[in-house]
């Protein structure tokens, strides 16, 4: 690990660019080319996007469809703890909850992944041994992303060495907003390489990108650079995942697959707390990108309190009466 921080190693470390995707071979040739491409993307009609999510959000999902939606949403949850006060014990208890979210009902599906800081990835890995539940680790100086590239890559390698199956990286929003798109692209490429076999989720932090146009550009940039998932937010900035943002990102992955044939997943994170919110997102996924994305391989919820609300709703459907917060774990 120290060799990465050695200045000598740094200069030798310009990663070879991978073969760009065929239709976009020229796009990442220079900063000007990237900018021309990204700004050539059609603008987002913000009013239209808000109207569309409002209409989709008003759909009534009841009975068997609701039961399906709740179980699907549970299986898509990245159960997350990203606090300064996290301990191995907290991660282990979270892992126990991930395996069996509702101990009173063994038919409840397990969640998709447990998302922790990189230094706790090995604890999570150990606690989840023998299950299909993935370990996701945030890296690259999460949540601000303000560190040198060498430190960010070391952060990634450390998390991968700890057993992380998925890496959640943050983009350099400062560089992106300043128009240094190629820097952002190169960084994602370098992180992807450092990930090895681990899946890479690219956090755009849409709350700091401000406009939906910027969200669309950042989504394309992350997909061009090889991200396996694009993720809305760190959860540390408000606003986090909103439905219009998710709509734009779902459109981006749909269009990207149409052109390149490569499918990229989407993960809204932060601010999704209720079953109703989750169901609205699932409707959006189905209507915008299509049912191909309705699986934990292609769509995730980054959340902690959402799971409890899903479990309460599940208990309500099962027993026929309302449940209460005494009947789920606190964390």
């Amino acid at each position, binding site marked *: 690990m120290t060799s990465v921080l050695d200045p000598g190693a740094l200069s030798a470390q310009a990663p070879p660019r991978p073969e760009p995707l065929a239709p976009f071979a020229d796009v990442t040739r220079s900063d000007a080319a990237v900018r021309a491409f990204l700004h050539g993307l059609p603008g987002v009609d913000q009013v239209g996007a808000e109207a569309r999510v409002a209409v989709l959000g008003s759909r009534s999902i009841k009975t068997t469809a609701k039961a399906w939606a709740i179980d699907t949403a549970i299986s898509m949850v990245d159960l997350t703890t990203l606090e300064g006060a996290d301990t191995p014990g907290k991660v282990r208890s979270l892992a126990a909850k991930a395996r069996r979210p509702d101990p009173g009902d063994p038919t409840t599906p397990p969640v998709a992944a447990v998302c922790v800081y990189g230094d706790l990835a090995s604890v999570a890995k150990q606690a989840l041994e023998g299950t299909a539940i993935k370990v996701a680790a945030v890296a690259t100086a999460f949540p601000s992303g303000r560190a040198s590239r060498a430190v960010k890559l070391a952060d990634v390698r450390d998390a991968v060495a700890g057993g992380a199956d998925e890496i959640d990286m943050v983009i350099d929003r400062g560089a992106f907003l300043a128009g240094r798109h190629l820097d952002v692209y190169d960084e994602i490429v370098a992180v992807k390489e450092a990930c090895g076999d681990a899946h890479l989720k690219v956090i755009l932090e849409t709350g700091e990108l401000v406009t939906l146009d910027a969200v669309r550009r950042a989504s394309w940039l992350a997909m061009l650079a090889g991200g396996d998932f694009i993720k809305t937010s760190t959860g540390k900035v408000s606003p986090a995942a909103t439905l219009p943002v998710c709509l734009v990102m779902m459109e981006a992955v749909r269009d990207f697959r149409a052109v390149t044939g490569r499918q990229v997943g989407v993960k809204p994170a932060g601010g999704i707390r209720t079953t109703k919110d989750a169901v609205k997102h699932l409707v959006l996924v189905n209507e915008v990108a299509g049912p191909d994305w309705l699986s934990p391989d292609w769509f995730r919820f980054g959340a902690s309190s959402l799971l409890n609300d899903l479990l309460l709703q599940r208990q309500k459907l099962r027993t026929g009466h309302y449940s*209460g*917060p005494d009947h789920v774990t606190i964390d």
Partner: protein
Amino acid sequence: MNDRLAVRKTYKLYVNGAFPRSESGRTYEVTDAKGHFLANAARASRKDARDAVVAARGAFAKWSAATAYNRGQVLYRVAEVMEGRHVQFCEEVAAGEGLSQSRARAAVDAAIDRWVWYAGWTDKLGAVLGGANPVAGPYFDFSLPEPTGVVAVLAPQRSSLLGLVSVLAPVLAGGNTAVVVTSHQRPLPAVTLGEVLATSDVPAGVVNLLTGDAGEIGPWLAEHDDVDAVDLTGAPAARALELERQAAGSIKRVVRPPAEEPDWAADPGLSRLTPFLETKTVWHPMGL
């Protein structure tokens, strides 16, 4: 001749300090004792009851932790604001219950006095119901009354204000939060009480008032896992046993309905305070 257009009223619920319409969008007509139209009231659904329980649970931590003195002050302030609405209460009680003006005034006076009386009880419960217990060992041993939690109240069907105050105020005085289903035929004094509560110092969510049918909403509240106690005073007589059975599923405190609606003007004593209080006993080593 007054040719001013009448302002027709459609009242709403009182949940979490706000006045939402029923989630179901339903309303029903409220008539006076002779069957003349008075106003429209919201007809609460089970989802309104669910939202009200969430609000009451959210408000419980702060209200139950407020000092008894503070709770007494807040409740006394409610009585003050009620006094300011005296005329309105009298009109609504007279119309709804078919009482003469003087008897309606007596009922409203009694209701406000009852509220003041319960406001005075907040800081006396500890001394009257708790105390130091003599134990065979070197310990100080104290018993203290603590609030039960979220209480669902099916308010009396006939006495629309005095009865309502008589079941609601003791729940609050002990430090509980309440979800109240008001009298179905006579909800207007309860609606006005909601306006009183919203403009006094009672924190949002401590009292939630649902106008509608206790027979419809009652079972959802009785079965709700996050409701700690249920007062069945205003439950339909035929449904009471079933409601008790439903409440047993989550081990609730249950106040059974009286055989018929009592005379609310009588001195209630502590009979409505103690059902919603739990006794906590603390053992403390005496030292040397």
